[in-house]
């Protein structure tokens, strides 16, 4: 009996098991389906199947006028809906060369960062829950609730805000809102410590996340990662710094970076982003200038013929909008979104290989995908 035959197939066949994770599964965060091929508990291959939440937002947009599209963007990353609004409105403003008043830009900054905290709250809750720490989930949701209250006051909605208009805000902020935001910043600063106390130095947490799903900087770039997964690998890329939008050029903040590029570093980066976001919110809320909230916008929004791409740093990464206008109609000729979740999800297959089933759950959590955005 020759040895090679022993190793390959004929002698000892490895009984591979095909396991369908999702679309109905408690920790695929929605309707993601991962077809795992398992050798025992080890993942040999992971096939990511998407599209269960496809609503055709890009195509629908071609039949809506520019203002109506704002509410479609709410439905993409529904845990940070206002960020989508801001990104879209800024794209159209760029196409039409509309100057947005400074007050509106400040409010947009606050809105974006509040959304980042809300999104990260949801992420830390579900990520910890996936790894089995159930209490963090409820703590994080408790604080997310405060943010939802702030938004309810700002625009009347709690999930899909429709909070921006092309050229500025639909309404000025309610009186005293900025003070409530500052009060929230005070509360939240302590709460972030609370989450970290439960997780950051927890031995089980360290064992579950350190060295899991390592991805080096160059490879992260090659895979097209953006946002915290990219920065977790140590690549200093943050659109808020590199190509400032809203009022970020006037804000003081740092971009946290990881080293190893494993699940733990992605976790640390996001936790630090909580603090940086709070810092930005405090600066913006304290320095809101007086003035109008809407710029000079024509009654009929009909951009000149041309195309533009504009990206912002959403909580999940680079959220880009590409809008083509033919200059004749009030609908975009082509509307295209570069959703960060979709691009980050590309890495899942590469990350899962060689890890265990339990790690797949942790990895999905550490990429922080929202299926509404992946499928659009």
């Amino acid at each position, binding site marked *: 009996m020759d040895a090679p035959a022993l*190793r390959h197939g004929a002698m*000892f066949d*490895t*009984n591979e098991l095909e396991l369908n994770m999702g679309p109905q599964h408690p920790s695929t965060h929605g309707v993601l389906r991962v077809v795992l091929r398992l050798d025992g508990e080890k993942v040999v291959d992971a096939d990511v199947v998407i599209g269960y939440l496809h609503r055709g937002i890009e195509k629908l947009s071609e039949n809506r006028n520019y203002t109506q599209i704002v509410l479609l963007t709410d439905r993409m990353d529904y845990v940070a809906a206002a960020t989508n609004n801001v990104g879209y409105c800024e794209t159209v403003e760029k196409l039409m060369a509309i100057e947005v008043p400074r007050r509106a830009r400040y409010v947009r900054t606050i809105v974006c960062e509040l959304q980042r905290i809300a999104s990260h709250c949801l992420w830390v809750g579900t990520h910890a829950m996936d790894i089995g720490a159930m209490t963090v989930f409820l703590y994080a949701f408790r604080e997310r609730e405060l943010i939802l209250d702030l938004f309810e006051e700002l625009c009347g909605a709690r999930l899909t805000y429709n909070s921006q208009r092309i050229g500025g805000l639909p309404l000025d902020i309610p009186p005293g809102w900025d003070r409530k935001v500052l009060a929230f910043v005070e509360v939240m600063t302590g709460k972030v410590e609370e989450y970290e106390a439960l997780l950051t130095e927890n031995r089980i947490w360290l064992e579950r996340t350190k060295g899991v799903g390592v991805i080096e900087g160059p490879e992260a770039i090659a895979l097209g990662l953006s946002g915290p997964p990219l920065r977790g690998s140590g690549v200093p890329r943050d659109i808020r710094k590199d190509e400032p939008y809203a009022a970020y050029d006037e804000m003081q903040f740092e971009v946290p970076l990881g080293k190893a590029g494993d699940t733990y570093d992605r976790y640390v980066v996001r936790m630090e982003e909580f603090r940086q976001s709070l810092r930005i919110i405090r600066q913006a809320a304290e320095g809101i200038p007086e003035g109008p909230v809407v710029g000079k916008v024509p009654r009929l929004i009909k951009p000149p013929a041309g195309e533009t791409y504009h990206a912002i740093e959403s909580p999940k990464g680079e959220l880009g909008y590409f809008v083509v206008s033919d200059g004749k109609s009030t609908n975009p000729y082509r509307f295209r979104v570069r959703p960060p979740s979709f691009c980050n999800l590309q890495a899942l297959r590469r990350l899962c290989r060689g890890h265990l089933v339990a790690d797949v759950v942790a990895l999905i959590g550490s990429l922080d995908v929202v299926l509404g955005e992946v499928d659009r």
Partner: protein
Amino acid sequence: MGEAIAFYTLAAFILGFAVLVIATKDTVHSVLFLVLDFLFVAALYVLLEAPFLAVIQVLVYAGGIVVLYLFVVMLVNLKRPPEAHQDPRRRTWLGFGLSAAILAELAAIALYSSAGAAPAGPAAALPVAGNTEQVGWLLYTRYLIPFEIASMLLLVAMIGAIVLAKREL
């Protein structure tokens, strides 16, 4: 009287389940009947005033060995029934015949030998009383070397099982 009822009930269960073990088609069911059989044998040990052995029987046989069987049965997950093929030269009736002969022989020994033989004198008194204590005393004094050999055997079996079953070392 109570003892007789207990004995016949237990005997009926033991033999009944033993027959089911070897007669059932589904291997998992067979393993389950084996567990039940072992549990009733443990009850028989209690009847025989050997509670320590009864507990060991449950712990080692039911809790250990049969779990192993169950694991293997679940792991192999056969694509075709294990008894689909039969060797044409197999003589099943001969098996039954031989078994019957063995039963006859054993029964004869049981009936004839015990009828005449008087029970041997009581064993040499041990310095301890109680079932567990006595078994322990014997194991660690008179039968210490067999005991150590048995533990070596278990070690060898453990290593052997790992070497056999592991895919790559």
